[in-house]
C-alpha cells in the first residue's frame, strides 16, 4: 500500500506478525509487573516507615524510574498496536516534525538514570552539542532510544559505559547514530534474529531471564517503516555491541 510519500507501507494487520500472540502477552505481563511491584513495595515501605529517612528521596526516584519503565513498556505495546492497525498514521507523511537528535536522545537517557546508577553503568551522549536533525516522529524516535538505552544498560557489564554517538556518513550523506555497550557477545545466529517479534537470544536470557521480545522489533518498525532508515547490530567476541541506526537524510 503506498503512503502519502509514495513509499510502500506494509499493513502489518495483513501479516503473520499481528496474529494474537499469547506468549508475547505473557512475556509483556511479566515484564510490566516487575517494575509495578517495585513501586508498590516502595510506597508500602514509605507508608509503614520501613525506609530509612536517608534513603527516602533515592527510593522515590527509583520508584518513579520504575513507573516510567512500566509506562515505556506499555508504550511499546501501544505503538505496536497502532502501527499494526494503521501504519499510515505513523509514517513521516502523517506526523512529520523536526526531531532534534541530541534532545531526543538525552530525553531517552534520562529515563534510565536510576537503573544505570544501580548497575554502576555510565550512559553518555558523546557529541551532545552537534545539532543533527531529522524529519520524522519525535515521540517514536524517543521510544527507539529508550528501548536501546534500556537494553544497553540492562545487558552491559556492571561498571561499564554506554556511549551514543551521532555522525554524518560521508558516503551516503545520511546520519548514523551508534549505541555502543560492553557486555556479553551476541553470536551471529542471534544477531540475525534479534529484531524479530518475540525473539530473545540465549545470550540475553543468561543475563535477564525474561523480556518482551518487543522492544527491538518496535525499533526496527519505527526506523525502517516510519523514518526510511535502517537498524543493524554488530557484536565482537570480546562483548562490544553496537547498534547502528542509519537515517537517509538529516540537516543541522
Amino acid at each position, binding site marked *: 500500500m503506498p503512503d502519502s510519500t509514495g513509499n510502500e507501507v506494509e499493513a502489518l494487520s495483513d501479516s503473520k506478525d499481528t496474529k494474537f500472540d499469547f506468549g508475547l502477552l505473557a512475556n509483556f505481563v*511479566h515484564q510490566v509487573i*516487575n517494575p509495578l511491584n*517495585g513501586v508498590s*513495595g516502595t510506597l508500602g515501605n514509605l507508608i509503614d516507615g520501613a525506609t530509612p529517612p536517608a534513603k527516602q528521596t533515592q527510593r522515590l526516584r527509583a520508584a518513579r524510574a520504575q513507573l516510567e519503565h512500566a509506562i515505556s513498556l506499555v508504550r511499546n505495546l501501544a505503538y505496536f498496536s497502532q502501527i499494526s492497525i494503521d501504519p499510515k498514521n505513523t509514517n513521516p507523511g502523517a506526523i512529520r516534525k523536526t526531531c532534534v537528535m541530541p534532545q531526543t536522545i538525552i530525553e531517552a537517557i534520562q529515563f534510565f538514570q536510576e*537503573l544505570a546508577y544501580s*548497575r554502576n553503568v555510565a550512559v553518555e551522549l558523546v557529541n551532545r552539542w552537534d545539532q543533527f536533525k531529522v524529519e520524522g516522529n519525535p515521540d517514536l524516535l524517543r521510544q527507539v532510544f529508550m528501548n536501546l538505552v534500556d537494553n544497553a544498560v540492562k545487558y552491559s557489564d556492571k561498571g561499564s559505559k554506554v556511549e551514543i554517538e551521532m555522525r554524518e556518513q560521508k558516503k551516503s550523506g545520511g546520519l548514523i547514530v551508534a549505541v555502543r555497550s560492553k557486555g556479553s557477545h551476541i553470536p551471529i545466529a542471534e544477531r540475525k534474529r534479534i529484531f524479530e517479534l518475540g525473539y530473545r537470544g540465549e545470550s540475553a536470557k*543468561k*543475563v*535477564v*531471564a525474561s523480556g518482551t521480545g518487543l522492544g527491538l522489533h518496535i525499533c526496527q518498525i519505527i526506523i525502517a517503516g516510519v523514518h526510511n532508515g535502517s537498524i543493524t547490530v554488530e557484536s565482537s567476541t570480546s562483548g562490544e555491541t553496537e547498534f547502528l541506526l542509519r537515517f537517509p537524510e538529516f540537516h543541522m
Partner: protein
Amino acid sequence: MSERYSVLLADDEPFYLEWLSDYLESKNVEVEYATTVDDAIKKMSETQYRFLIVDLNIPVISEPSKFSKDQIATYKSYPGLYIANTARNLGYRTRQVIVYSVFASREIEEAVGRLYCTYLTKGHPQDLKREVDEVLNYDPTKDKP
C-alpha cells in the same frame, strides 16, 4: 539486641527489589543477592541463610547436574526451582524457601508443592512482607519433631 540474620534474594533484577532489601534491613536482616541460578547455588554452598526468596524466572548459566529428566523439563521453564530444590536438599525447611513468580499455574503449584516450599505470586508486596514476618518470628526449635 536481636540476632542478625542473612537472607539470600535470588532475582535477576535487583533494581526492582530495593524495597524488599529496605524492609528486610528494617527487620535487622542482612541481604545478599544472587542474579543467576549458578550464583545462588554457589552462595548457598558457602553460607547458611536464615531463609531464601527465589524468583522462578532467573537465568541459568550452566544447567545444574543431579536432576531427573522430568525435573529438568519443568525446571527449564522455571529455573528458580533448581535453587529451591538444592536448598531443600541442603536442609532448608519448607518455609525457609519462598519462591515467587508473576504467574500462577497448576504446573508451578505442583512443582513447588513437591518441594513443600512457600509459593507467592508477584505483584502483592504485602503478602511477601507478611510471609517474611512469619518466617522471622518462627522458631524451629519450638516445633514438634
